């Protein structure tokens, strides 16, 4: 399985990253996958309680976060027999509308691609050390202590 994991501390464009990833796989003579399942997550304009969000701050555990993402991707990719896996995740201060996560799974068939993409997204939400703090318009902030409902 081809695997790439990257944390960005500045805004990234998921479609540009995907195009680069596809070009790299092609350059490595990795034939294009018959099935690719992708997910792009972006920061909402509202906080969990419905008020306007100024920004989201993403803290992580340098070293462990990357290692844990790699382990989760390897496990999930092997379980589903997929061909390629790209994970891009933001850290730092992220503005509403900006991309926060991109997962792209290439496989020979749509079932494994979709299942792996979905499971890996849940896994990284629950088992990769990231923490989100919501910054409100009035300058106050609060840590989010769970994920948004599925």
């Amino acid at each position, binding site marked *: 399985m081809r695997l790439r994991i990257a944390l960005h501390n500045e805004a990234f464009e998921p479609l540009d990253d995907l195009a680069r990833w596809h070009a790299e796989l092609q350059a490595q003579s990795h034939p294009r996958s018959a099935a690719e399942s992708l997910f792009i997550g972006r920061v909402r304009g509202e906080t969990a309680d419905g008020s306007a969000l100024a920004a989201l701050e993403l*803290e992580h555990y340098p070293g462990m976060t990357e290692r844990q993402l790699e382990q989760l991707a390897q496990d999930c990719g092997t379980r589903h027999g997929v061909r390629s896996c790209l994970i891009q*995740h933001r850290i730092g201060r992220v503005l509403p509308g900006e991309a926060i996560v991109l997962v792209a799974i290439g496989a020979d068939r749509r079932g494994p691609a979709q299942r792996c993409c979905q499971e890996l997204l849940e896994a990284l*939400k629950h088992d990769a*050390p990231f923490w989100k703090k919501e910054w409100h318009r009035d300058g106050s902030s609060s840590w989010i*202590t*769970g994920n948004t409902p599925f």
Partner: protein
Amino acid sequence: MGEPPANGIRIRLFAGLREQAGWAEQQWPLNAASEPPLTPQQLWEALQLPGPLSSVRIAINQQFSRADAPLNPGDELAFLPPISGG
């Protein structure tokens, strides 16, 4: 030349837990593996960290671990409040 090998326990806190405790990292002296061994649970209590230990996850050397796992000199111990990634 170079630093001597670390022989305490490096303890790290993150996110809301770090802010509540008022510190991000400290060193706990431990020169040799003790008998009975020192555990994350004992350190949680000794450091008087806020809330129940069950509200956090524990990592030793950047791998998830149990609260009663034995700690050795040079280990990095982290207490992780609830994760919210993705």
